[in-house]
């Protein structure tokens, strides 16, 4: 093991450019696989857990009694369905919207650490692009999804779609600002915008150090992900399916999939920023001790996702004017208050 690591370090010193390229390509392949498989599991999990909340079974035919292959069957169905583009649609924008959505998620995934490996007494973070400003970058890339939603809604040339697109845009603007302020508050406490360093600096979880910021970030995150009670852009009882009404087949599948990709990435982001990321006691068992940071992060992410489904099954959908009201009149002032708190506490402990 030591020999391999030594030779890798040697190669990195000799050919830094090629080394970075190899890491980039291999990392990109790995994260796209991990994120997409993860999102599939999230969809399956949501269907199962939501069914449980509603006293139903959920998928229980394809792939045994747990219905684990249901998503494979759904994917085959979506891929083989007829691809319909409405005659009056703005074709270029219509076709590109799902692709932009996928790109947005992949951009987020590139900078998010998916955990760490505990080798030789220290944590090696698993991140493809370890940037100095990754927190800000992730925030910005996450809001690209709103652009994709607007593209889809606008280009469909459909009344329901355009209403959904407008709602999505109004919501995004109202909540992206408090969310950004919360990220800044965390960065001030951590003295860094690098997500890896933010995790390493959490001797006490920021959820406890700035509880107000945590609450605001959670609400803003749910809004950003467009989940109940903030799913106005696709409220099916009002505007059919909102921005993706006209989409069908795999184009719809991509848009739908990205929502769950984002849910997964958002949960990881929440765990990293506020819940100590992959921190946790090392499990003193061989092999398990290497992946124990991964296990801790996974556990936190699963709990966050479970809570989101819980919220979905028990809350009503807010009206769009109530959503923007809440965003501008409550979330923004409170997040600025939290920023002040972070500056005070941060400078005291610095």
């Amino acid at each position, binding site marked *: 093991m030591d020999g391999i690591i030594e030779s890798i370090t040697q190669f990195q010193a000799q050919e830094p450019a090629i080394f970075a390229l190899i890491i980039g390509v291999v990392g990109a392949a790995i994260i796209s696989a991990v994120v997409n498989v993860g999102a599939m599991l999230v969809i399956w999990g949501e269907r199962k857990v*939501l069914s449980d*909340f*509603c*006293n*139903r079974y959920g998928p229980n035919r394809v792939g045994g009694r747990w219905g684990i292959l249901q998503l494979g069957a759904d994917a085959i169905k979506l891929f083989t369905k007829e691809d319909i583009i409405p005659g009056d649609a703005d074709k270029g924008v219509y076709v590109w919207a799902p692709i932009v959505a996928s790109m947005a998620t992949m951009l987020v995934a590139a900078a998010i650490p998916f955990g760490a490996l505990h080798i030789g007494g220290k944590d090696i973070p698993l991140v493809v692009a370890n940037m100095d400003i990754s927190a800000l970058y992730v925030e910005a890339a996450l809001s690209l999804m709103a652009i994709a939603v607007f593209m889809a809604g606008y280009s469909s040339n459909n*009344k*329901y779609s355009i*209403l959904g697109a*407008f709602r999505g845009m109004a919501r995004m603007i109202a909540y992206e600002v408090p969310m950004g302020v919360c990220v800044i508050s965390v960065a001030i406490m951590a003295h860094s915008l690098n997500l890896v360093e933010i995790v390493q600096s959490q001797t006490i979880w920021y959820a406890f150090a700035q509880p107000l910021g945590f609450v605001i970030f959670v609400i803003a995150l749910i809004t950003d992900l467009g989940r*109940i*009670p903030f*799913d*106005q852009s696709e*409220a*099916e*009882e*009002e*505007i*059919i399916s909102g921005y993706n009404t006209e989409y069908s087949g795999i184009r719809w599948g991509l848009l739908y999939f990205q929502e769950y990709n984002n849910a997964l990435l958002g949960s990881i982001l929440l765990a990293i920023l506020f819940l100590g990321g992959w921190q946790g006691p090392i499990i003193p068992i061989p092999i398990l001790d290497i992946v124990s940071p991964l296990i801790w992060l996974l556990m936190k992410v699963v709990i966050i996702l479970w809570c989101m489904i819980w919220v*979905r*099954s*028990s*809350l*009503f*959908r*807010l*009206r*769009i*004017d*109530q959503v923007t009201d809440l965003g501008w009149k409550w979330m923004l002032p409170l997040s600025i208050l939290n920023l002040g708190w972070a500056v005070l506490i941060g400078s005291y402990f610095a």
Partner: protein
Amino acid sequence: MINASEVLSSIQSAFPGAVLDSRVESDRRLWATIDSEKILDVCKHLSTKLNFDHYSGAAGVDWIARNEMEVVEIMASHGAHQVVAMLKVKTPRENPSVRSLTGLYWNANWYEREIWEMFGINFEGHPEQYPLLLSDELMGAWPWRKDYKGYPDLTTGERAIQITTPEGYMELHVPPTPAEVEAGTVVKERPKYPSFREREEKEIKSDAEMIMHLGPQHAMVPGPFLLDILVEGERVKKAFLDLGYIHKGIEKIMENRSWLQGITYTDRMCYVASLSNNECYCGAVEKILGLEVPLRAQYIRVILEELSRIQSHLIGTGEFLTLVAGVGYAPWQYMIMDREKIISLIESVTGARLTHTFVRFGGVRNDLPEGFAEQCRKVLPFMKSRTEEFIELFAQDPIYSLRMENIGSIAPDTAKRMGCSGRVLRAAGVAYDMRKEDPILVYPDLDFKVVTGTRGDSADRIDVTLREILESIHIIEQCLDKIPSGPIKTEAKIPKKVPAGEAYYRVEDPRGEMGMYVISDGGDKPYRVKVRGPFYATFQTLTPLLEGVYIADAVAIAGSMDGCPSEADR
């Protein structure tokens, strides 16, 4: 409280000679034929002097043998007294025309439109005499007249042929017969009116406004009806309603079936409330026949109708909650699960889950099965605790009150004037319940309250519905204690031909006041059956409520009315 004969004498003294013919059936029913010239004055007298503030509906009758048509105005009061006045206005069969009551009663609008399109009776002074239930090609055919031949005309043996229109749609086309071509009568004179589309597009004032369809295929609608909203941004400026997507013509079908067969059609009007529909029809026929229902059968009917009310309220509430919260909302699934228990109870008696056809003339089809009371006593306390839990849950939910409170509020006076019924009326604070106003069966012996709300908004409607479930449970528990043993069917022989006569019978449907007006001409089939459905009445108030609200609230208002388009269209 005044009774029917006092109402009659009051009319006779105020308008001498206006009452051409009259019959006081009981203290609560007055039948009178009014001079068609004086009907407006009589109605004005009734509404201002005698508290007849509830216009309950109107029925058209085609008396082809007498060569005249009749419009029967059904008038009642919201609690001031219990008299139902059935005022008949006669008009000749050639160019039939009567005065419109829309100036006096706002809600006469839809009832008169229906009579106009079905019978061709013109209403003088009606503001919008447009088709409501029928499609355009049937207009002018007057399908509920007795000499209607069917569409396409089945007497000629011709069938409609399928053609493809220039736009590519498949349509049915009825070719003119050679005789018609020869006589030159192919072009039928159709009444002139703007189409639904033209009417709503006329309202678009600027580029910022657009018409959005909520229905007929939409996640919001509980059945097919078209609700078009004119929106500017997120605001609804005006709403338009079009019915008739599932118009089955049940009233006409029942004229062509035997008396007993008619019961099965009442099931299909609204399948979540089929027992009270059964009751309404059978009660009216029993009234004509003068049948006494044995006490045990009366109790069985009450038990089943209240059970049916509970399950209807549960599905009505649950469905509505999904409109506001999304389909993932867990309490709705719990309501459906609880409803299943009630359905099983009803199924153990009637053998059917939805369309029961259980009530018979002078009794019920079969007795309660062994152990039914024990089963009921097991399920009812559970239902009670569950319902209380739901009430508490909604009372504590802040987002629920944000979305429901002060949404679609109706003031009591407006609710009365618009002729709402059921939960919409009671949520507005008007204690109007047929079980108290026009008691039937053993309801007078039972102790229960009429649940009312205070604000008349969507939250109150849900609250009233849930608290009505508690009252129903209370009623069933009393019935289980009191039910005597004995026969379940009347001893009297029920004739195949019902003697000539007419009756109007009202029951409290889960959705409100349901009335059936049944006429017999002594034959083996009903001469005319008019159904006064509760949702048809409430439905009419939807469009004015939607003006100026947000789109999301439009859904929350429309859903809170516990809609059943199947019953509104009949």
